[in-house]
């Protein structure tokens, strides 16, 4: 089972890397936000898997925090984005 | 109960008073609380100094956990001596600030001013008393955060950029210290200062320890504004409210000097820092440049607060110079100067604060003719100024005397010359102000406003001035304490106390 978890963890890491690339090189600011958001949700899954990989699944609490913070951060980005100047 | 916990009280009292102040909410009760607490802390620290001088080092295990597992508070002569200066100055500044801040800080922020002052005092006492390298970092940050707040309270908008610059530099400095402590911890596995000292000896020439030393020295140098890392200090001191400047100039950087002494002598050991690493040459070089460059810059300033701020950087040069001489007399002169400089700079900045209170400006042009209009304030300024210059019968003379003696013991003639040269420059920058005050006529516009400063400002100012003269004549208390502290620090470097 460990190898399966490891494989899943690596696969999610790859997806995270892709989301990260998107956040680095987004054509519009919204794409960037999208990339960041996707990165966040994948991180939640990554933590869940890695908890099992390391044999300490009681760390799922951290995954919950990630999910929560990701959402709050997203809302904050959208909220404060209104105040700034439109896209140049 | 009190007896046993005396060592912890100088930290705990202001620490508890700060949240209490927020609950009290009204300015007047907060001021009374803050002054009382600060006064109690100074009485306690005097008591502590007395105990330390008679019975030796006090060690206090917070939470009942023995070092190195728990956090140890450790009071020896060096920190008790500086603690007395810090708490006493804090009390006097609080007395002074009651009227002073009315002109310089918005009314709605007075409560927060006193709270931040208490926090700063708690942080500084914590830095002094703690015997744990990481705990020191925590208290350093408490005092720094409170300091940034205090600096930014002034009405002048330039205080904001000054505070921000201070924040960035201060945080870099603190992070450097954090890195340094981390490297030491990595190599030794402990954070307790004494334990660190014992175990560092095992790894004397390890690269990791060398790097740790370098980072700690650079970090602390930022905090104490050693040339060329002093750029944050002059704007911060110039634009902060006068009461804040008086407090910070005479305590914050001095505590940082103490931290440097503590790290060099207690933790690393003088022989390692100076003989193996050759730090003394670097420190000496920068100290001498600081004395000349900053004294010169001080003489060029239009603003008196700015002049005094640069003078502070120069005076820090003297302290570091004393440390870098690597002998008991040199270290003693450094410690002595921490104490003495607190007395003189406190008095000077209070006098400037009083002028600011009456005139709303600290430019040198505002000082014209003040000798006649504010005679008591200017007399205080003059006496404290003479002390900065190092005229006999003032404290400034005492510390410089020992510094020169130490230099001659090492037969460093050029250092003795440098000290004298620095004093000559001090004559110039203090002289300019005195000339304006006594030999120039005031501007017409200002004449009406000028009258003597209120008593609440004069009293703390004159207490400091009298202390300047008293400790300049009867030097037994200060020199004895400083000598004892310096000897103890040097012993620490050689003979290790080994804990079971």
């Amino acid at each position: 089972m460990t190898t399966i978890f490891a494989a899943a963890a690596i696969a999610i890491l790859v997806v995270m890397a892709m989301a990260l690339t998107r956040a680095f090189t987004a054509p519009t600011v919204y794409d960037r936000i999208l990339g960041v958001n996707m990165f966040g949700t994948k991180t939640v899954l990554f933590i869940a898997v890695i908890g099992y990989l390391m044999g300490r699944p009681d760390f799922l609490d951290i995954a919950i925090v990630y999910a929560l913070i990701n959402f709050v951060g997203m809302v904050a980005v959208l909220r404060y984005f209104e105040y700034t100047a439109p896209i140049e | 109960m009190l007896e046993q916990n005396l060592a912890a009280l100088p930290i705990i009292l202001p620490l508890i008073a700060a949240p209490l102040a927020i609950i009290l909410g009204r300015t007047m009760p907060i001021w009374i609380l803050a002054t009382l607490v600060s006064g109690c802390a100074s009485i306690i620290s005097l008591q502590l100094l007395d105990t330390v001088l008679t019975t030796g080092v006090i060690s206090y295990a917070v939470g009942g956990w023995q070092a190195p597992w728990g956090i140890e508070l450790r009071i020896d002569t060096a920190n008790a001596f500086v603690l007395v200066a810090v708490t006493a100055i804090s009390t006097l500044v609080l007395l002074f600030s009651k009227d002073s801040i009315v002109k310089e800080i918005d009314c709605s922020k007075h409560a927060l001013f006193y709270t931040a002052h208490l926090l700063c005092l708690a942080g500084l006492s914590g830095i002094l008393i703690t015997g744990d390298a990481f705990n020191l970092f925590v208290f350093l940050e408490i005092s720094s955060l409170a300091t940034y707040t205090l600096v930014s309270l002034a009405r002048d908008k330039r205080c904001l950029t000054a505070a921000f610059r201070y924040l960035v530099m201060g945080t870099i400095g603190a992070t450097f210290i954090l890195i340094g402590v981390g490297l030491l911890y990595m190599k030794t596995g402990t954070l307790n200062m004494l334990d660190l000292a014992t175990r560092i000896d095992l790894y004397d020439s390890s690269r990791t320890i060398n790097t740790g030393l370098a980072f700690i020295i650079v970090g602390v140098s930022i905090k104490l504004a050693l040339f060329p890392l002093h750029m944050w200090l002059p704007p911060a001191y110039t634009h902060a409210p006068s009461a804040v400047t008086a407090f910070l100039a005479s305590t914050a950087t001095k505590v940082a000097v103490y931290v440097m002494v503590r790290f060099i002598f207690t933790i690393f050991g003088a022989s390692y820092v100076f003989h193996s690493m050759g730090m003394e040459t670097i420190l000496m070089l920068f100290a001498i440049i600081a004395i000349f460059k900053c004294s010169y810059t001080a003489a060029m300033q239009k603003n008196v607060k700015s002049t005094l701020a640069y003078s502070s950087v120069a005076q820090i040069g003297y302290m570091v110079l004393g440390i870098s001489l690597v002998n008991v007399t040199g270290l003693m002169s450094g410690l002595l100067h921490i104490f003495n400089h607190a007395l003189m700079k406190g008095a000077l900045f209070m006098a400037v604060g009083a002028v600011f209170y009456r005139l709303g400006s600290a430019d040198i042009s505002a000082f014209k003719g003040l000798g006649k209009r504010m005679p008591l304030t200017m007399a205080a300024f003059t006496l404290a100024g003479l002390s900065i210059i190092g005229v006999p019968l003032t404290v400034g003379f005492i510390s410089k005397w020992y510094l020169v003696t130490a230099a001659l013991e090492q037969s460093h003639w050029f250092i003795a010359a440098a000290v004298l040269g620095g004093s000559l420059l001090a004559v110039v920058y203090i002289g300019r102000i005195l000339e304006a005050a006594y030999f120039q006529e005031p501007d017409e516009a200002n004449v009406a406003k000028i009258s003597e400063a209120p008593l609440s400002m004069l009293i703390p100012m004159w207490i400091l001035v009298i202390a300047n003269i008293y400790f300049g004549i009867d030097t037994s208390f200060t020199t004895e304490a400083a000598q004892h502290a310096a000897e103890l620090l040097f012993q620490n470097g050689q003979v290790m106390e080994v804990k079971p």
Partner: protein
Amino acid sequence: MNFLDIISSLLLFAGTFFAFSGAVGLFRFPDFFTRVHAASLTDSIAAILMIAGLLLQTSFDLNTAKLIFILVFLLITSPTASHALAKSARHGGLLLFTEKPTKQGGTNQDD
């Protein structure tokens, strides 16, 4: 490797597949709104599959509850976030790839 393990590995595999396809969609789709679509749909399905896969590894204790909590939380918040994002984007003037930029200035800054 028992039966549950096999199912859970299959679920994990499927989950990663969808996550991956969503990430590809993030790059390949023509405009922002289709990209949101790709990302948010796969987000949900990947979360469901993977957490289901992990659920099979628990023995119905606190961890099960936490996993379900995470799943519920993700299923509520992630589409909401995508929705809010798409709405802001539309409000901010992004256009569908089928639309032509008008004079008022849509800013379809696609590469």
